[in-house]
């Protein structure tokens, strides 16, 4: 079992969380090309890397963003997912 230390929540078991996918900025629907949209929807680069990922804490209903290395499965940063995240991605 992995444990994650979260702001306000303390050290929590990963079993209390639901994975919500990697953080990605949705392309502009008006101007996006078919190829770019298809890549956004279907294409996942599986190479080992450090990703920002959405993780949902079910008991509190809070979305977090974890920075996780997909090779070591190590979580290096945890923060609240705040409104307007699309601008940062």
């Amino acid at each position, binding site marked *: 079992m992995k*444990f994650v230390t979260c702001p306000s929540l303390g050290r929590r078991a990963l079993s209390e969380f639901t994975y919500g996918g990697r953080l990605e900025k949705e392309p502009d629907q008006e101007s996006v090309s078919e190829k770019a949209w298809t890549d956004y929807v279907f294409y996942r680069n599986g190479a080992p890397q450090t990703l920002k990922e959405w993780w949902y804490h079910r008991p509190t209903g809070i979305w977090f963003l974890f920075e996780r290395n997909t090779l070591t499965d190590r979580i290096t940063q945890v923060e609240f997912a705040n409104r307007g995240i699309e601008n940062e991605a």
Partner: protein
Amino acid sequence: MKLRLAPQPLEWIDRKSSVSFTFEGQTVSGFKGDVISSALWAQGRKVVGRSFKYHRRRGLLSFANHDINALLQAEDRPNVRADVVQAEDGMSLTAVNTFGSLASDKGALVEWIGKFLPVGFYYRAFYSPKFLFPKWERLIREMAGLGKVNTDWSEERKPKRYLHCDVVVIGAGPSGMAAAIAAAKQGVDVCLIDENPYIGGSLDYQYVNEDSQQLNRKYLKETVESMPNIQVITSSYVAGYYGDHWLGINTPDGLIKLSAQAVVVASGVFEQPAVFRNNDLPGVMNASAAQRLMARYAVAPCKEAVILTANPEGYRAALDLHKNGLVVKAILDTGKTAGESVVQAKSAGIPVFENAVLVEATGRKQLQGVTFEVGRLQHHLSCDGLLMSVGWAPAGAPLYQAGAKFGYNYTLEQLLPVELPEGVFACGRINGVFEIEDRIKDGEQAGTAAAQTVLGKEALAPVDYTAKSAHSDPYPIWPHPKGKEFVDFDEDIQIKDLKGAIAQGFDNIELMKRFSTIGMGPSQGKHSNMNGIRILAKLTGKTIDQTGSTTARPMFHPTPVSHLAGMRFRPERLTPLHSFHQQRNACFMEAGSWLRPEYYPTAETREASIAEEVSAVRNSVGLIDVSTLGKLEVFGRDAGELMDRLYTMRMSNMNVGASRYALMVDETGVVIDDGVAVRYSEEHFYVTTTTSTSDSAYRLIQKKVIEWGLKVTVLNRTGQIGAMNLAGPNSRKILAQLTDLDLSNDAFPYLAMRRAQVCGVEATLIRVGFVGELGYEIHTDSQSALKIWASIMEVGSEYGIKPFGVEAQRLLRLEKGHIIVGQDTDGLTNPFEANMPWSVHLKKPYFLGKPSLMKLKTLQNRTLVGFELLSKAHKDMPLESNLLIENGAMIGRVTSIGRSATLNKVIGLAMVETAFSEENQVLKIKLTDGRFVDAKVIKTPFYDPQGLLQKPDESNEGEAA
């Protein structure tokens, strides 16, 4: 008791209370605290089991909680571990692997035909002729396996428990105890785990007669007991190490799942047997086994012993026997061991043969003597005990599982951890530290370092206490022309079997293991892997490091399935109206985590009851509990904007007091949810989701609110609100008696929403179609729902109101052609395929999945259609998911089907290739039994196609407000 000794200083038995049990039908008595093995041995019963393949007699070998062939059948469970389980009054035990009895086992005949059963024989022997295989299979199944499972035994589930500490120490021997104390002194919480019932480890059986260790023993044990931040867990073993220092600990009461910040592995070493002819005769055992027998249970391993050794530990064992008045005929040293215990043994008058080789045990049913050579001269000694102390292998499972790397140390002739993962520490003999004072110091530094890791402090560089001389013989293996030199006692693997495996190309450690089955028995190679590696290395000319080791996976010991199963936590949700359903003896079904009434048994059969419910709704009035719908409140400045972005239709132009169908797709355009949205105010919507998606839809919406940066709040109120649907031509007449609200068509038209007092309780009323009749959905706080429900039932009685369940609802909705998301749609269905193009407003500037839908609109190749079955025979009734076949190819499948009494035919929905979706197309449905039945595509809704009944006497198109 033939072999019971005088009281020992640290014995675990209570001589004041005796226990009595039966073994193979004979009464055995022992003392409280005896394990089954020690009680048997004390009485001179040296045969405790038969071997797996050849059914040879076997006694005690390792006596270290993983003993070989000491698995017994009890009345209530198989495979009782005789060296672990304490003897109890009234136990009735038999050996597990015998045909007949332990004393006279017909299976022993296998040994005589053994040469026809070469290594890997079952991988090779039974391929042809094929028709004989079932015969072989039956025979093999009979011969293989240990113990019998009684399938009449009742289900058993052990609870599990979570535990958290800072430092966990595995093994409570001298180094483990020292580590626990040192860590606890740093102020962190410590757990100390040992598989034995008492802490102390080898300090209490290898050093039991050494006065010099009394102070250490007293200090370590008393300090462990007295420190409040050390929690001791005994009779429990670490079954597995998992990521983030997460341990599964098997206790007699159930599994403990322990989370620690740092792990100290002080699990010690397994003594390894020597490999020579007849090394499995009862009476041949590891020296440490003999020491445990004596120190813990005051049982002599034998009367006349010969010690085979390669280290000071063997000499120390000889001295222990000597001290107990047992005859030590000789010490056979495979080399020239030096040290204090050697001097003591020699001065005690014990003959020592140095450089002894070519050992062979003799005897028929049990050990009677030993022959060996020294300088080409053969010797023979008679004895009833041959104690082996030729080497050690790491009890390294927790380290291996944590990702530690081991390397072979040629000074010690032992595998040692050379690379440890972060937060994992090793100390004591597993670390190659053998001097007792050094083991304690090694434990202290490991415990301190572990605590400092937890506290975020810099740890000091460790001092190297590794022993300076070998404690293992590099090759304690003497092949014999006649064989029967056992490497693996679990699986009866001899040297020739490994040779055979290697000769056939299985010369990699993992391949050799699987082909020969070495290390695959109940002890999982604890006594055999090291010798297997040594043999493989020698025969392939590789080093031990090049040879490698097999993977040590969980579980460390055989772990009962009841422990792994644990308690069953299966959350079950009840609606606020559940007590009513129970009173009406509803038949419940599971809908997600909810229990819902499937139907209320009012007629003789299930079908008749459902038909009555349907008829009530169509002809008068019915009431259904729809509290399981997901219910979300959406409020704030951007509420309208959010609704527009989430759903495929435009929502922000809804009038206050209106409702609208709400369909959601994901980014790929697949339908994921549907429900009804209402608008309470400019900035406040209320929307339902399907029963099974309430959590996931809420989660998704919250995420989208964040992504889109909208100023809006979404609350999941699913469990806080009760909901019911009152449907049928008489529904308005009933509701009118319970509210002051003007229910006229003009004041409360079709698809409008009103908030009003019902039965004096605040409620939301929505005029939805739902089942295609005049109807009202009523939502209210969960505490008030039952009050409204009961009043409706009471007022409705004059109209013959019936509560209806899920089955009637499904049939009623199917008659209207309504889809069920997740049943009529699957993980790829888009709204066009679901035949709902009207629900997609591609002109909206933005909504979730819009670019995908724009493309999918041009790519449609399957369509959801309605059909009626062309046969009315009961035997021709298709099932959901039956396939549609055309010219031998699948063209679709049935997604919903039901027998409509209202329409007097079988109707259904099917997802078909668009080419077959035209009206009047005949579809061939393949029934489960392989027959075909015809169906015809027809238009939906099947019932009341104009939708007049859900808005009687109304001309306007709803949604006005």
